[in-house]
């Protein structure tokens, strides 16, 4: 039972961690090499890794997808340790719209124009993105913003993530306090009174049983 509990916790924690890793913004130092548009036919499997059609447009089973091709600086430890090596990375550039994930991005075309303009030069840039690149399922991270850099050696401080995790911890502590208060004030008294009633009921039963056995006893032969 204990082992089962630990396994369940580890799985839940991993899923939650992966979810946050997918949804929270990350920063890559890149050199944008080109921008392009490809037609995309989604499958049932990789559809959930794409956003919807441009905000205000109609959803079709097939549509064009804006891509940003880059050379990206490799990193260790989720981007906290920069390396000298580079690799290619392709980002999609889609509106997230009003719902999910809550980036409220409507300016994909502007971002594409910006990327194209950066691609003309030879300068480094920071791309803010969320999502994963999964080659075998044709899944791309979604670019949110592009910012020009003077040199590739920058340390981007993830302010949003710092505030997010701070807020998450505060929220969990608060929810816990709320639950404890609810249990102390509303559930425990109910259980107590239920226990009292149970005690009374079993006392009644014992008494009745006593009466019946006593009555039965009157029929027994007296020795």
């Amino acid at each position, binding site marked *: 039972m204990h082992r089962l509990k630990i396994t369940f916790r580890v799985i839940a924690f991993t899923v939650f961690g992966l979810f946050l890793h997918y949804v929270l913004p990350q920063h890559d130092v890149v050199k944008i090499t080109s921008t392009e548009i490809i037609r995309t036919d989604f499958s049932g499997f990789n559809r959930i890794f794409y956003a919807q059609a441009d905000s205000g447009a109609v959803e079709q089973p097939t549509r064009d997808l804006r891509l940003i091709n880059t050379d990206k600086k490799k990193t260790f430890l989720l981007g906290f340790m920069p390396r000298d090596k580079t690799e290619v990375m392709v980002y999609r550039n889609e509106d997230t719209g*009003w719902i999910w994930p809550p980036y409220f991005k409507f300016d994909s075309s502007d971002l594409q124009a910006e990327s194209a303009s950066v691609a003309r030069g030879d300068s480094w840039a920071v791309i803010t993105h969320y999502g994963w690149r999964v080659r075998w399922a044709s899944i791309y991270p979604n670019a949110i913003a592009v910012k020009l850099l003077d040199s590739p050696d920058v340390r981007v401080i993830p302010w949003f993530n710092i505030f997010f995790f701070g807020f998450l911890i505060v929220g969990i502590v608060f929810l816990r306090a709320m639950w404890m208060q609810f249990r102390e004030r509303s559930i425990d008294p109910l259980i107590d009174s239920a226990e009292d009633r149970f005690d009374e009921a079993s006392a009644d039963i014992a008494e009745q049983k006593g009466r019946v056995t006593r009555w039965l006893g009157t029929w027994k032969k007296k020795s």
Partner: protein
Amino acid sequence: MGFVRLVVFGFVGLSILYLCISVYSRSVRREKLEKAWDEENVGSDDLAARNAYVEKGIAAYNNSFRPKLIGLVYVIPTVIVMVIVYTTNTN
């Protein structure tokens, strides 16, 4: 259409949060009042006086400014969404 959905679901979700927080806050206040009374009247079992004291305290709390602060539950997320919309879509 997406905007309408955001507003409707956001309003429902925040209303649930608002109700939970106001119930919690009142419950904490009530517990504090009960403990205060018990400390001042050790050994007394005058339940009527205790109830009167607690109800008076709760009424004072209801009329104070504090419970109105819980309305920030609606304001803060709206402001955050507006800030995110602005920062994401300017270049």
